[in-house]
């Protein structure tokens, strides 16, 4: 059952990701990205990281993607005009990505097979670790969010000097 779910979520997520970068309209891209996030959350569930799956949906599919869509609407972007095909850019992107992939595949093939250990990422377990071992980074993250918030407010002022 787990294996079937893995294959389903994986293939669906990769297809969604592919469509993100192939869609001409940014709105479509954003929607496919939301889809990819959902399938990613599914993969997290398969990996028994339940807390992260929820966070993934809440933060990414919810907050982040809403922000994306909001900006797209706000900027009122037309869908991209068909442009002359940029072979250099296209080829370069494909080649670099492929080279990366090949190398990672090589490395992964050489890795020893290990069995999954039975850890479950429940909210309680993750939260316990977060509030004990990672308390300081957790608090620092709040500062980071504060800084980001101030920065965004400042950047969004109309008469930015």
């Amino acid at each position, binding site marked *: 059952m787990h294996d079937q779910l893995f294959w389903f979520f994986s293939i669906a997520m990769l297809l969604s990701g592919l469509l993100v970068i192939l869609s001409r309209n940014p709105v479509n891209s954003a929607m496919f990205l939301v889809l990819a996030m959902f399938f990613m959350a599914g993969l997290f569930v398969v990996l028994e990281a339940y807390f992260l799956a929820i966070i993934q949906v809440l933060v990414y599919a919810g907050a982040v993607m809403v922000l994306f869509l909001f900006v797209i609407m706000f900027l009122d972007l037309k869908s991209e005009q068909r442009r002359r095909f940029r072979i250099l*850019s296209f080829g*370069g*992107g494909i080649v*670099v*990505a492929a*080279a*990366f992939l090949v*190398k990672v595949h*090589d*490395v992964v093939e050489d890795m020893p097979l290990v069995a999954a250990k039975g850890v479950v990422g429940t909210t309680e377990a993750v939260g316990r670790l977060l509030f004990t071992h990672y308390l300081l980074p957790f608090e620092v993250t709040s500062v980071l969010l504060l800084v980001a918030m101030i920065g965004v407010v400042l950047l969004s002022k109309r008469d930015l000097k």
Partner: protein
Amino acid sequence: MDDVTGLLWRILAGPLCAAVVIVLICRRSPFYADFSPVMERTAGPVIAIAFLLGSTVFAWLALDAVKAGNVMTSPTYRFLDVGDLEVNVNWSLDRLSVMMAMIVCVVSLCIFVYSVGYMHGDPGINRFFAKLSFFVFSMLGIVFSGNLVMMFVFWELVGVSSYLLIGYWYQRPAAAEAGKKAFIVNRIGDFGFLLGILLVWNVTGSVDFSDIRNYLKVHSHEIGGGVLTIAALLIFCGAVGKSAQLPLHVWLPDAMEGPTPVSALIHAATMVAAGVYMLCRVSFLVFASPAAMDVIAWIGGLTALLSAVIACQQNDIKRILAYSTLSQLGYMVMAVGLSVPQVNGYMPAMFHLSTHAFFKALLFLSAGSVIIGFHHGEQDIWKMGGLWKKMPITTACFTVGLLALTGFPGLSGFFSKETILGLAHERNDDLFVLAAVTAGFTSFYMFRLLFVAFLGQPRSEAAGKVKESPWVVLGPLIVLAILSVIGGYTWMGIPGWLVGEKGLSEVPAGGNVLALAMLAFVMGLALAFAFYYGEPAEDPIKTKFPLLHTILWHKFGFDEFYLALVKYVQGGLAALCDLVDRWVIAGLGVRGTAAVAQTLGKMLQLFQTGNLQTYAFLFAAGLVIILYYVVMQ
């Protein structure tokens, strides 16, 4: 046993103070505006002469003191202390130095007085006397130096002041050039001198004359003869430059561009004598190497002959005297090279130096008197003539100097020259022949000068209008004439000063030598008489032997040769350096690195498209390359 150091300081301080005072005070100044004309015209000469007179008196006292056996006992001061090299300020005060100082002072005094007349009306007369005083100071410094380094310092000061004096009329390009030439040619010799000092110091561990002398007395056999020869010859290089010996003689005739008193001072008493004096001062070193003595003797002899021959075809009255000086200096250097250390050492050379100082100064000053008569306008002897009627005293004085120079019996030059000829006869027959022939040529060119310039009828309009010079000019001439006559006698003259009461009896001018010398003298006189007495309009040698005339007129082509040497060798080297500089240093080094940086920059600029995607691509590509590299490890 009194301490005579004080005297010595006073002798040296005189001319130096004069120079400083003249430079500082004798100028137009608001402090003594009313006296400005006096200050600008009269004060300089008066101050210079007064101070020099003081120095002369002190030199006389020092001479007495040395004769009485007094020595200098004052402490010496440390001048330099570098590693093993210790140089003290110390002085050598003996018969040699005091007599030389005496000659310098007396001759300089005559020349100073004479200059008042010669330079009358010259706007830079104060500058002139300041330079003259400084020159005398430097020369006295050489004379009294107690070690090689101090001598070298004063040696260079003499070089500088001679440069200043030769180029006194710096407005004339020829004078400026001549000053430069004298300075540069002297530098070549001085370079050798400096190397010689270093070598001597390296070998003996000291630069002090007395230390070196004592060291050589004990250790001269331990040092390889070759090293001593090289050291002596390197030091001789300095003398070659200063005393204008072959092959560095070229500067001296050109130095005639300076005012005549300067020529007299440089050519008679001081600068050129410095070389010979220095050889005498380091005679213990020279005498330690027979090979070096041979070289020195031959260079001296060849210089003497060559210059005498060249002098036969010069037309400028001062140039003739200049070549004559070269020739006489050759005699002196030859005498040093031929010295018999056991008998009387450098005595013959110093003897001739002293007498020569008097009669050559006399000759130059007489020539200057003639030039005054021509209002500084004419120096060509073929435009003179008939001066004996217009300038009887000058002519008489000139004749005295001439007879002394040519070795007429009874005058000072006769004694000193006979001494040298006798020495040559004893030591080296080849050089004796050379010297005797030179004596013949000397007599020839000097009588040529006399016949053409002074006797006969005026050869130009200007020559008919000359008048006798004022007494301020004639006075020094007469004093020098008297000195030229009596300078050679033991009872009063130089030999007594030099070696005490012994005189010169150890080197007798034997009968054969005397006869040969007289023969040379008479032959020269006869030839000059035959060629020049009949008042020819121009030089008969020029018309009858044009080739000979051309060769001599161009002075055997030394100047041309050196010019070519400079042009091709030095010019070639300079061109090579220029090429290296232009292509290797500037081209490869400077512009090359710049070009490499620029090319690299141009190449890198291609990546800087400003396009975000290009940057992203390059970034990702670099990441992938690093990944491959890391995994490959």
